[in-house]
């Protein structure tokens, strides 16, 4: 195993790093609820 992508809880990314893996952390935050509503509307339209 060479490289792992980590998304979410920081302690899990840190644990993988401590084991000597190359860890790339995703800059992630949940999409705004407005966006979710818009997605649902678009889903219905398409």
């Amino acid at each position, binding site marked *: *195993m060479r*490289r*792992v*992508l980590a998304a979410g*809880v920081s302690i899990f990314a840190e644990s993988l790093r401590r084991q000597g893996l190359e860890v790339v952390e995703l800059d992630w935050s949940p999409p705004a609820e407005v966006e979710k509503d818009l997605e649902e509307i678009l889903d219905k339209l398409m």
Partner: protein
Amino acid sequence: MVKVGNIVLRGLYRDSVQLMEATEALRKLRGVVDAAVYMGTESNKEMMRERGLLTGEGLSAGPNDIIIAVAAEGDVEPILTTGRQILVGGKRPADRVTFEQALNMDFDFASISVSGRHVHRLAFPLLEKGVNLFIFSDHVPLDIEVELKRRASEKGLLVLGPEAGTAIVNGYGFGFANLVRRGPVGIVGSTGSGIQEVTCLLDAHGVGISHALGVGGRDLREDVGGLMTAEALKRLERDTETKVIALVAKQSDEKTVEKVLDIMRFTKPLYLTLLGMHRSKVAGFQNIPTLHGLVLTLCKEANFEAYEEAVRSLEEEVAMMENAVEKTGEPRGFYCGGTLATETALIWKWLGIDVSSNIGVGWVRGIADNTRSQGPTIVDYGSEEFTEGRPHPIIDPTHRNQRVVQELNSGGAGIAVMDLIIGYGAPDNVVEKTVEQLSGVRSGRITLHVIGTPKDPQWGSLEQLSKLPVITARSNALAAAFAAASWLGDAKIIRRVVSQMVLG
């Protein structure tokens, strides 16, 4: 005079560990009586309300907002401002990548622990790119899980989870995992703490593991169909390092297990522990009732000398525990690991104890209110209702520990059974924190089982447990048997459980 104040940071996201760290920082400030920093989900707001921490401001928060709540002697405003600075001022590391950037990079695995309802946004594109997935998140819709696993099976990829607590792949631990030696035993499990229990006990007996693949708590349900159990078993059957295979399940559908095992051809020995399934054989394979029992069978297969030594030392431990039995009040179990909670329920039920629990299996009565016990009760603090927008109790066992103190001091419980899980994914200070939180116990006894190995970073702190009124047990099965023996005032119960459910 204690005042309560809230502020809401709208549209700001921090992961559950960052929120826990902010809470701990606020609790240390002068005058603070209680503090909580949570995402504004309904269950979190309810918990804050019960603790007297919610004001009208906090009530207006939504699930994408952070609530900072403080109860303090004197002025709460400066404390709330400090909370805001901790959360807003904390800069994210510059080396993080956007999802678009990530999709242009090569990865062998992705570890996903974002909120369950957003998992699909990351999981499907990554799977499409050929990346294996470890998904810790719960609350992932079932149809998403089935579709992810169906696509992964077609591509020969792994989707470990959702609700995968642990995995060890080529010696690397994902989620909650322990530093165990490498060796001939390969494990597949729809359980997290169950896999940790088996790998750590094997390690203590000198037997190592090749891979341990947690496939998620729902994989062996009829609607998921064991898609990833089948894929993981195939890998272990092909793997040259693996000489013996174990399949562990917290909950499983008998027909689904049979279907998965029937279509496979095994050239290696395979043993099962399907908790709560009372048949001694399933699809022709031996089904061992407890995790400790499974470990002894695996030792016998992998290293007979290790097995003989394990049985000899078990005999010594049973004798020691028998001597420690004193008659107590009711036994109650408070767990971070759901599979351990399930195993305790199984052992108590086998002993004829009428158990109530939130573990969600048909063979144990449910409880209407998880915050109140009725008779012998077992509460899994890692179940979904406790973890939405909050850290898993292996990361922050505070609520579980507070419950142990409250139940013992009120006399509701005479003896509490609990786990303490160390290793990767658990904070470095989890032992100190637990010892400090349990130091308020004034009556009753605790029987505690540590899941960990001497190589885990927190192992050195375990000597602090000697400050507490605890009896430590080598396995969860022994802890469960000890608590039952204490309540029933019959030390022979420990030997009965060991001979029938561990050695039998």
